[in-house]
C-alpha cells in the first residue's frame, strides 16, 4: 500500500522507486534470473580466468540440456499443482531399455521401445492422479518404487546380452558439430519451442494453467480434468524418457541409477525458474534458465575445489536463497 502511493508520488520517473522496480521485475521475472546467471558466469571467470571459452559453453549446454528437459516435465506437472518424482527413474529405465534393445534390434526400434516404456509409466501415473485422485507426490513416489523394482528385475534378465548405447544416441547427446555446436540442441530447441508455444498458445496449455489455478472453477467450466491429467502425465513421462536418452548419450552409459542425481535439481530448476509448486503460475522459459544456473553453479563449486560436503551445503543454501528471493519479488500482495 505505502509503496504504491510512494510510486505515484514520485511522478514521472517510476524507475527509481522500489515499488516500480518490483512491479517491473514481477512482470519480467526472467530478468533477475538472467542477471543471476550472468553473475555466476562472471564469478566463474574471476575464479578461474580464461575458463569461459567455446569448449566451456559447449559442455555447459550439453550438461544443461537433459536437466532442462527433466525440468520441462517438472514444470508442466507443477503448473497443475502436481509434481513428478518418478522422472529420474523413468529416465534411467528408458536409457537402459534403449541400451539393451538397440544392439539387437537397431536404434530406431530401441528408441521406440524405450519411449513406450516411458509413456506407459506416465500413463499409470496419469490414471492414478487423474482418475483415482491419488496425491501426485504419493503416486509418482510409489511409481518410482515400482519402476525401480521392475528395472532391477529386467536388468537381471538381460544381464547376459549386455548393454551398449548406440552411436547415434551418443552423437545426439554428447557429440558436437563444427567442433563446438552441441548436437543435443538440434533436439532441444524444437522441443523447447514446442513446450513454450504449447503452454502459451495451445488450448491444452491453457487447460494446464486453468486446472492448476482453480480446479473447481475449471471443472465447472466444463474441463474434463481427468483427461487433462492423464495426457499431462504421459507427456511428463515421455519428456523424462527423452531426457534419459540424451543423458545416456552424453555419458555413454546406461544403468539403473543413471539419472538419480538429477531428480532434486529438476524440481529446483523449475522452482527457481519461477513456477509455483501450488500450480497455475510460472512457465518453461524460467526453468531453462534455472537449469543453466544450476549447471553453471555446479561448475563454479567444482572449480572452487570445495570438498564434496561443502559443495552440497552451498548448493542447497543457494537454491533456498534464490527461491526465497524469488518469492519476495513476485509475491502478489
Amino acid at each position, binding site marked *: 500500500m505505502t509503496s504504491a502511493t510512494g510510486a505515484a508520488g514520485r511522478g514521472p520517473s517510476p524507475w527509481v522507486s522500489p515499488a516500480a522496480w518490483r512491479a517491473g521485475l514481477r512482470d519480467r521475472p526472467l530478468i533477475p534470473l538472467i542477471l543471476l546467471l550472468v553473475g555466476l558466469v562472471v564469478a566463474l571467470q574471476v575464479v578461474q580466468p580464461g575458463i569461459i571459452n567455446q569448449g566451456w559453453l559447449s559442455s555447459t549446454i550439453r550438461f544443461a540440456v537433459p536437466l532442462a528437459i527433466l525440468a520441462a516435465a517438472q514444470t508442466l506437472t507443477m503448473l497443475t499443482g502436481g509434481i513428478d518424482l518418478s522422472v529420474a527413474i523413468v529416465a534411467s529405465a528408458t536409457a537402459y531399455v534403449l541400451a539393451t534393445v538397440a544392439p539387437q534390434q537397431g536404434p530406431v526400434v530401441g528408441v521406440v521401445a524405450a519411449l513406450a516404456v516411458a509413456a506407459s509409466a506416465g500413463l499409470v501415473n496419469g490414471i492414478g492422479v487423474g482418475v483415482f485422485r491419488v496425491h501426485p507426490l504419493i503416486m509418482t513416489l510409489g511409481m518410482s*518404487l515400482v519402476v525401480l523394482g521392475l528395472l532391477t528385475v529386467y536388468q537381471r534378465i538381460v544381464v547376459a546380452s549386455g548393454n551398449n548405447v548406440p552411436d547415434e544416441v551418443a552423437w545426439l547427446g554428447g557429440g558436437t558439430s563444427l567442433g563446438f555446436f552441441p548436437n543435443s540442441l538440434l533436439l532441444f530447441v524444437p522441443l523447447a519451442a514446442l513446450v513454450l508455444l504449447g503452454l502459451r498458445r495451445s488450448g491444452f496449455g491453457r487447460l494446464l494453467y486453468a486446472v492448476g489455478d482453480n480446479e473447481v472453477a475449471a471443472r465447472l467450466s466444463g474441463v474434463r480434468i481427468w483427461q487433462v491429467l492423464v495426457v499431462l502425465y504421459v507427456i511428463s513421462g515421455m519428456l523424462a524418457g527423452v531426457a534419459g536418452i540424451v543423458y545416456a548419450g552424453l555419458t555413454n552409459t546406461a544403468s539403473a541409477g543413471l539419472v538419480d542425481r538429477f531428480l532434486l535439481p529438476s524440481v529446483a530448476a523449475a522452482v527457481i525458474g519461477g513456477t509455483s509448486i501450488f500450480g497455475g503460475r510460472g512457465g518453461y522459459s524460467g526453468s531453462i534458465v534455472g537449469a543453466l544456473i544450476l549447471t553453471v553453479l555446479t561448475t563454479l563449486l567444482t572449480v572452487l575445489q570445495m570438498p564434496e560436503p561443502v559443495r552440497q551445503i552451498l548448493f542447497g543454501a543457494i537454491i533456498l536463497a534464490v527461491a526465497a528471493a524469488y518469492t519476495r519479488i513476485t509475491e502478489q500482495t
Partner: protein
Amino acid sequence: MSVSAPAAAQSRGGDSVATLGRALRRDSWTVALLLLLGGLLILTKVISPRYGASDLGFLAIGALPVALAAVGQAIAVISGGIDLSIGAVMALISVTAASLMRGSSEEFAVVVVIGVLLMGVVVGAVNGVLIVASRVPDIIVTLAMSFVWAGAALLVMGTPGGAAADWLKNLISGSIGSEWIPKALVVLAVVVGVVWLPLRRSRLGLSIYAVGSDRLAAFRSGVEVSRTKVAAYALTGLFAGAGGLALTMSTGIGTPIPGPYLLLSVAAIVLGGVSLAGGRGGIVGPIVAVFILALVRTDLTFLGVDPNYTTVIQGAIMVIVVMVGAFLTLRRKQA
C-alpha cells in the same frame, strides 16, 4: 471422514458401548491396520512355522528407526507441511552420535544422547524458521535443506564409522519381561508416549492440528501460526534425531549417506491414514504401517520372491492403499 483430532477424542461420558463404537469409527483406519498387522503375523507364522520371538525382536529393531522417522514425518504433515530432509537429518544425527561416542566412556554416552536429541530439535527448528521466514513452500525448503544436512553429515564423518555405547546397544536388543516383548518396541512406546501423548492434548498439539487443517482459520482464532510451524518442525527434528540415534544404536556405527528413510516415512504415513493435506491423522497408524511394510518384506523373503519384486510390491501397496482410501472417502461423501 473420521478425524482423530484431540478435540473429538473427549467423549462426553454416557453409554460406554456408544463411546466404544464412536472410538472404533473414529479410528477405523487404525483398527483396520491393526487387524491387517495381526493377519500378517498369522500369515508369517503359517508360511514359516519357525518364526519366533527372536525374529520378532529383529523385526522391531529394524523397524525402530523407520517408525521414529514416520512419527516425525507425521507431525510435519499434520501441521500442513512435509519434511523431505528427514533422511539427511537422521544421517547427520547418526554420525554425530557415533563420532562422539567413539572411544568415550559409557557415562559420557548419556550426555551424547541428550546432546544429539537437542541437536535434532535445533536442526528441525532451523527448517521451520526458514520455512516461516522465507515464505517458500515447505517442500522446497526441506528439499534444499536436505542437501545442507547431508553435506553436514559428510563433514562430521566422511565414511561409515564411530561407535555406540554398550548400554545403548543393549537398550534395544533382546526382550523384556516375556520373550515376546522386544525391548525395541518398548523403547518406541516409551519415546512416543513421553513426547507425543502429553503433547497431543496440549495447546501446542491442538494448534498443530488447527494450523494443518486450515491455516487462515487457525490464524483468525488466535493461533500463533508461525510459532506453531516452527514447533512442529522442531518436534519432527526431535523424532528424526531419535531415529538417527536408533540407527547408530542398532548398527553400532554411523553412516553419513542418507538411507531410504524419507521414502519409507512418507509411505508409512500415507498408509497410516495421515492426510497429506494436513490436519488429519495420528501417530499410531503410521507406526503400525511401518510394521506392516516390514512384515510384508519378511513374508516375501520367506516365500522366496525375488527381493527386487519386493520393491515393486511395496510401491504398488502404497499406491493401491491410497487409491482405496480415496475411493472410500468419496463413497462416504456421497452416502
